[in-house]
Every structure is written in C-alpha cells, then in structure tokens.
C-alpha cells in the first residue's frame, strides 16, 4: 500500500517525532560512522548469548539511520530537521520458532540481554507453532562491505544551498501559474551492519534522495483548483541527482513535457508544473469510454508496483498478509501450471535488486543473502515470486531471492518487494512512433490517484497529465481521467512498448506493509508502453 500521508507533515516537534525517521542530531555529527570493529564485537556478543540460551540460528542487525528533511510552503522554509536512530535488532530461531528483540542500548550487556529475550520469545512462540521454521542455506561471506555508489554526499551540502534550491523552484512555479506550492527534500543514509551465525559480517552504507512537490493553481472566479506534482522520482543516489544534466532530459511524446532520467532539473520541472497546473483548469473533460492508453514510465511505475509487484509477493500468496494488505490472485497453482497468461507475449517482468540508482539496490538483503535478479513474468507467463530464506522451499527453490528487509533496527525483517520492472521492447520504437498508429487514445504522464483490491484484480489509476491522441497525433490536454481495469486483462492488452533508449525508473519511498506497518523504498522501471481498449471513466462530480 503506497502511502502519501507525509505530505501533511510540516513544522514542529511532534511532526519530527512522527516521521518514520527517529531522533534529531546536529549536522556535524552525521558523517562519523560507527566503527566496524565495535559493531562486530557487539554482533558476536549477541550471537554468543543467543546460542548459549538455546538458539539454533541468530542474526544481528546494527543500524544507524540518518536523515534530513526540509519542508517548504511557497516562499518559506517551514522546517529543517536532522534525525538519527541507532540500535540493534536480534532475530533468532529456537525450538523451530522465530523470536525477535531490539534495543537502543548499544553495550555488550544491552545486546546480550536482547538476544536472550529473543530466545525466550521464540520458545514461547514455539508452543503455538505447527511447523518449524527452516531457512534455505546461504553461504557465510565473511567480512564484506557494500555502498551505494554516490558522487555527492547530501550530508556535506550546506543547508542554505538546499533551501535556496527549493525556494527558487517554488518561486518558478508561482511565477509561471501556480497559486501555491509545497516542496520537500528527503535525504536518507542507512548504515546497516548484518551478522549471522552462518558466518557473515556485512557492512553497508546506503543513500537515498527525493524531492517531491505539489503545485496548485486556483481560479477564484470559477472556484476550480487543480494540482500538478513533480515528475522526478525518489532514487538510490546522492545529491548529484539534482544536477539536472542536459543529457538526462527526455522529450515526452508530442513534446508535451520534459521528462528526466538519471538526473533531475527541479527548477525547470517546477516552472512547467505551475504552467501545467493552470492549463488543467481549462482542459477538456474526458468523454468516458474505451481508449488505447500510452503510459509514460513516470506513470507506469505505480501500475507495475500495484498490479505486479504486490501480487507476486510470496507471503501474500501464502496468506501471511491476509488480515491487512491482503492475499493474491497469482496463486501457486497458476505459477506451477507454467501456463498462466499474466500478460501478452510482450510482457517480461523482472525482479532486480542490483540496478544502480534504484531504491532497492543493496549488496545483501537483511538476511545476508547476496542480491540478484530473476524473472517474475516471462513472455507473458507467470514464472516466479519474491521470496525470503524461510519461503523459497515452498516454490521448490534452494536459494533465497534476497527479499528480506526491515525499515528499522527495532522492527523484524520480512519479505519486501525488490525493484520490479517491465523490460524494454526489443523492436526499436520511440514514444512518438508508439503513438502513430493509435486512433483514439490517451497519453498519460506522471502518477496520480491509485487504488487496487486486496487480491490485486481490480484497479483504478489517475495520473498527472492527460493528452488526447487522435489519429496518431497527440492533441489537447484532458482532465478528469481515470482508468479502471482487471490486472490480467490489462497486461494482456499490452500491445507495444518503446525500446531501451526510453527505459527509466520511478518509485516510492513509502510502500507500507505488515502489522505493525513498516515502510520500504522501491523502484520500478519501464519504457513508454501501450495498452489497447482500456476503460476510462470521467471523475468530475458536483457537490452541494
């Protein structure tokens, strides 16, 4: 479930505490990492205590999560917060059951105590357990490290420079037509140390960045208001993402917008947003009916996330998420039949935790499994799922997919979505060529409203900008557009896609799952893709 509640966050002490980010610290303390030697000693202490208490397996995650977020409203900076959260989570297996305990007390006594508590919980849980937990083997890798490849560390960029960038962008939007704008800069650094009784000691340094904005144009005369959000994306990159390099700019089909690949021009996009938010106020309201949809990667990522990412999570398929997020239509019998047509022959969807710049890219997952890529849908057929060490045996595999993740040291790790992406087409096609043979269609740029049922059949998506396609040409802007479809019907209506020159990623910082809920960051790539004969509804209403 993709969450958007963060947009309500503004100033104040309580807002800082409510961010899924932890406690605040001064900027000068952000850079110093905790020494690896110290982390190894703590991990060994916890593992020894757990083993002595009767654990057959133990893993220790020592986390230090550093973040900075800056929130703005129009020409004002509302808040600047630096946060830190550090602590240790210990997971064990004892008597065939899991136990987990966490502590912010990073002393040998503190972690040993947490380890013993985890074993006690495992033993208590084992009484209600029908089958024992079995982990697929994963090789111990010894002492290794991995870091997100970044060029500019956000921690070293002065706050003034960042504040100026945001305010310049806001000013650009306000001057070009927006009545209001809110923008935020999220910057994340996760220093994660993983150790397990399999003999792994893995030190990772992860970086992420995101600059969402929300520009609104108001026509006081008619009482109408419309908004346009950013066309950038959250990334697993450093501050260099905001360089806005010329070679990373892409012309949308018909030249209706500038889109961005490996770097993002915030100021340019904010100016365009002001203009386009205003244009939306007088855009033609869509005629409901069947249309061929041409979807940009800035839109596609969310449709992929909801209609392929979630249904292929093995824990959902098995029923572990039944009480909240739900189950899945993509049941085991469908995968085992090797005949289930999830999509048309063109549809090839891959899970991949190794793509540079993506939110899901790490060296090793939170169970110490080396990251990799694998097929979920091949030539339209459902072939696999996303699984962790305790799950892969269910699908007859011997090696975990490396999909384990916890959003904090204080939460237990569980199955989370890797980057799930639609492969680019093999035939050389540009977005303009993709539109050429569409008689009656809509080109959708950017992600908007989204909703899908608990088994992932029926969905409805909006977007940021909609353009009419008539006889192969992109025409006027449309409004009040949402499309409704069924996952299998939709993916089987996929008739063409652009080649790898047009392939790029979008993503989310806040994919929510589990009880208590944890958030996870994930990217989804695609090229511009066409779906024929999809049901479009008109969302304009009248009230009071």
């Amino acid at each position, binding site marked *: 479930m993709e969450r958007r509640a963060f947009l309500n966050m503004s100033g104040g002490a309580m807002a800082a505490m409510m961010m899924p980010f932890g406690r605040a610290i*001064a900027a000068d303390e952000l850079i110093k990492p905790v020494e690896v030697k110290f982390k190894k000693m703590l991990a060994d202490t916890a593992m020894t205590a757990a083993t002595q208490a009767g654990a057959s397996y133990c893993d220790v995650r020592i986390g230090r999560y550093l973040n900075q977020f800056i929130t703005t409203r129009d020409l004002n900076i509302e808040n600047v917060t630096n946060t830190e959260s550090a602590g240790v989570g210990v997971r064990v297996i004892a008597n065939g059951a899991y136990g987990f305990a966490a502590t912010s007390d990073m002393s040998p006594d503190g972690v040993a105590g947490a380890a013993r508590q985890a074993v006690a919980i495992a033993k208590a849980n084992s009484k209600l357990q029908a089958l024992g937990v079995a982990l697929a083997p994963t090789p111990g890798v010894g002492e290794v490290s991995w870091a997100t490849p970044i060029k500019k560390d956000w921690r070293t960029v002065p706050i003034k420079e960042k504040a100026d960038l945001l305010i310049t962008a806001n000013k650009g939007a306000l001057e070009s037509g927006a009545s209001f704008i809110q923008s935020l800069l999220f910057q994340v650094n996760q220093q994660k140390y993983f150790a397990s009784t399999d003999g792994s000691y893995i030190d990772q340094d992860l970086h992420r960045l995101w600059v969402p904005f929300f520009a609104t144009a108001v026509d006081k005369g008619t009482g109408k208001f*419309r908004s346009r959000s950013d066309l950038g994306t959250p990334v697993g990159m450093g501050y260099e993402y905001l360089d806005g390099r010329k070679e990373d700019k892409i012309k949308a089909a018909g030249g209706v917008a500038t889109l961005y690949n490996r770097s993002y021009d915030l100021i340019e996009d904010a100016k365009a947003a002001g203009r386009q938010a205003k244009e939306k106020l007088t855009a033609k309201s869509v005629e409901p009916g069947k249309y061929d949809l041409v979807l940009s990667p800035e839109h596609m990522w969310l449709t992929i996330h909801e209609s392929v990412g979630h249904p292929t999570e093995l824990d959902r398929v098995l029923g572990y998420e039944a009480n909240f997020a739900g189950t899945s*239509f993509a049941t085991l019998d469908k995968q085992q039949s090797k005949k289930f047509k999830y999509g048309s022959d063109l549809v090839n969807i891959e899970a991949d935790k190794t793509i540079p710049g993506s939110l899901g890219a790490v060296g090793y997952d939170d169970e110490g499994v080396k990251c990799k890529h694998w097929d979920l849908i091949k030539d339209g057929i459902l072939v696999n799922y996303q699984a962790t060490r305790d799950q892969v045996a269910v699908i007859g595999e011997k090696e975990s997919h490396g999909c384990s993740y916890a959003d904090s040291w204080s939460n237990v790790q569980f199955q989370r979505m890797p980057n799930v992406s639609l492969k680019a087409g093999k035939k050389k096609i540009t977005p303009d060529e993709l539109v050429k043979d569409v008689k009656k269609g809509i080109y959708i740029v950017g992600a908007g409203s989204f909703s899908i049922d608990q088994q992932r059949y029926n969905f409805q998506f909006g977007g940021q900008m909609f353009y009419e396609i008539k006889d192969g040409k992109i025409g006027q802007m449309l409004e009040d557009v949402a499309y409704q479809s069924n996952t299998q019907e939709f993916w089987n209506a996929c008739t063409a896609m652009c080649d790898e020159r047009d392939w790029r990623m979008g993503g989310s910082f806040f994919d929510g799952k589990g009880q208590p809920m944890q958030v996870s960051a994930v990217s989804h790539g695609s090229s511009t893709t066409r779906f024929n004969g999809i049901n479009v509804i008109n969302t304009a209403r009248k009230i009071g």
Partner: protein
Amino acid sequence: MKILNQEETKRIADKVMSLSKADECVVTINGSRTGNIRYARNAVSTAGLVENTQLAVSVAFGKKQGTSVINEFDDKSLAKAVQRAEELAKLAPENPEFMPTPDKQAFKSSDTFSKSTDAINPEYRAQVAAYSIEACRKKGLVAAGFFTDQSSYETVANSRGVFGHQSQTGIDFTCTVRTEDGRGSGWVRRDAQDVARFDPRAAAEVAMEKAIRSAEAKALEPGRYTVILEPAATSDLLAYMFNSFDARSADEGRSFLAKKGGGNRMGEKLFDEQVNVWADPWDKDIPVLPWDNQTLLARERMDIIKNGKIASMNYSPFWGKKQGQRAIGAPGNILMSGGSKSTEELIASTKKGILVTRTWYIRMVDPQTVLLTGLTRDGTFYIENGKIKHPVKNFRFNESPVSMLNNIEELGRPEVLAGDESQFQLLIPAMKVRDFNFTSLSDAV
C-alpha cells in the same frame, strides 16, 4: 525505560527549559509500552513488546526554529538535545509565518487511562489469538489477525508556563477469517480504551460468521444502490473529509470548503440535516488528550457539522491571527450522532439494498469534490425485503463523502472505531444511504 510519572517528566521538562538560551522553548515527552501479537494461517507468526520514550525540544531565536529529538535522559544528554536544537535553529532560514508558543493555560484532564488495559500481559495477548485460531480450526476456517495494546503518556511544556501530563491506554483488534477454499472472507475490528469492554470471542464470531455467509457470492451489475454501511465502511471516507476542514486551504480556494469567488463555506448547509458531528476530548467513550500537541493549544468541545451545516473549521495559530479568528486545538476525535437501531434493524427496514462490512484502499481522486475511490471487502451482501438474501461480489466505488452525507436515509447506533488510515478516534453510526455509486466489480475475496 519505565513509564514516567508527572513529577518525573516535570523535572525533566524544567531542566531542559532551564538549559535553553533561546527566546522560547517547547518540550514534549512521549513514553509508551506497546504489546502485539500477530497470527496468520491459524498460527501465531510474531509477538512483541516495544518500550519507547522520546523527548523533543523545539527552540526559536526570533522566527528561526530548530527541533531535536532524543531518547536518553541523563543531564548530559538533555544538555546535548538543547544544544542540537539551538544549532539547527541558527542554521534555519527565518520563517515569516512563525508563531510564538502559547501563553500559560489550564488543561482540564480527560479520562484516557484504564488500569485493566495497562495490565495486559503476553498471556492475555496469546489468549486473544487462541480464541479465533481454535474456533476457526474447529470449523475448517482460516484466521489471520492482529491484536495490539498500548499504555502511554504525554507531557507538554513550554517556557511561557504551559504544562500538561496525562496517561492513556488503548487496544486495537482486527481479525480476518477466510474459508479454506478462499471463496469466503469475513472481518472484524474492535477498538477500546478499556480492554474490559472488548470481547475477543464475540469479535471472532462476527468474522467467522461473515466468512461463512460470504462464500458463493453472486455478481450484481455496478450502479447506484441503497447501501447500509457499517461503521468500518465509512470510517476512512469520513476521515478523508475531516482532514479537509482546514480553514486556510478553504480560504485559499483549494478545498471543497472553498467558496466560489473567495472565502470559505462556514455556516453553509452541505449535508442532510440529520448530520451532526462534533469533537469532544472529554467524551466518555473516546476521550482524547485535552491538548493539541502540534500547537500546545487546549482542545474544546466543538460542533463541526450542526444539522447539516458547517459549524467550525480548523485555524492554525498563523491563519487564525491573519483572519481574526481564534485558533483552538485541532480535534483528536470525531463523533457523529446516530439513532438507536442496530445494523440488523436497519436491514429489516430495507426493501432492496447492499450491506457493506468494510471499505478498503481508499484514495482521493479529486479533492475539489472529495471524490474518493476504494473497494468493499470481507462481507458484502444483497438485501431484499428486510433480509440478507445472498452474498455479492465486491464493488469498486467512486463516491464523495459529501454526497454520501447528503443521501442519508437512516442512521444506526454509533460504535467506537479506529480507521485503517485515520488519525482520529471515531464514534460513528452505521448509515443507510441512497444512490451510493458502485462503478465496477472486483473478483477479489
């Protein structure tokens, strides 16, 4: 860290404020002990207990503000927290909309603490899970659920003499029961401040009965129907709408409460006259803290909708000052008046309609009209001549709570409830509503 009492938190807050050299200082301390048990496939999957205490210090030099949050409480750590907040305040640009923290005021305490909830132990949690698991095993059903209990406190203080401290408790239970063949699914939610009011066996029975009755669902054509919406079917829809009661957004023309030509729709009749909604921190069923911890302003009993008319909107201190309106603490609960009928009695008086247990994955489609989309889930039934005739396939809806509250036929007995994604404590009735707009069918069970 142990749960701190009023004297202990007052000592800490005073210490922090005495260390600050800033023009003003606000301290918030939150401590909680949260227990949970989670189960699926008729077995416990995880159980845990998390204790957490945090202290937030917000300081301001003129219109420059900084915040830091720590979870250590020795003198050295407190000094460090103040220093960090002051450093950040000095780095931050000036905010022209900055408002000073409020002057000294009294908070009238509310009854938010229950001893029986505070005393919940792991055995009790295991028993809650066991009731539904064992009952489901016996009937060939599959249970998945989550029970969580919390005992917590909040302290707020500022350098102008404001001080408040109060303890609170609460439980939340959800359980989904599915038939083994996956063709039936039922659900229940129970929320209470006092666990003595929670009956886990009776709750599990509701989910089991709905699971059994919802199998063999028939498809009905999408369209406009009279619906009976149980409280869990409207909780998130209402929460979305009440999130839009911000006066500033309305005055700026970007909310459904904006008036054409400028200003807001205060006093206008937007809903059926049966609709009466208010907030009350001292309500006996869903009491909340008597202050708003974002602004440190006292909450008050306030009418929000009176006989279908907009009776109040939320003013931030900045916007209140600008518009010459009094800012008061933003509400923590939402209460809606109802009737005395049970859901069964509402069904009995319905000729033709659909009973909705719950709605799910609700998102804003158009904030101009608060048009929301989402789906029914875990128990949707066709009603004919006062009786449930058969289960029906789930629907997607595209509907505005504004229209929904205009189309009310009859209201049932209010129930205490938390929403899936709502920050409000709710006491809302089941509603019989005409012309609810279902736009497509879903195969999901």
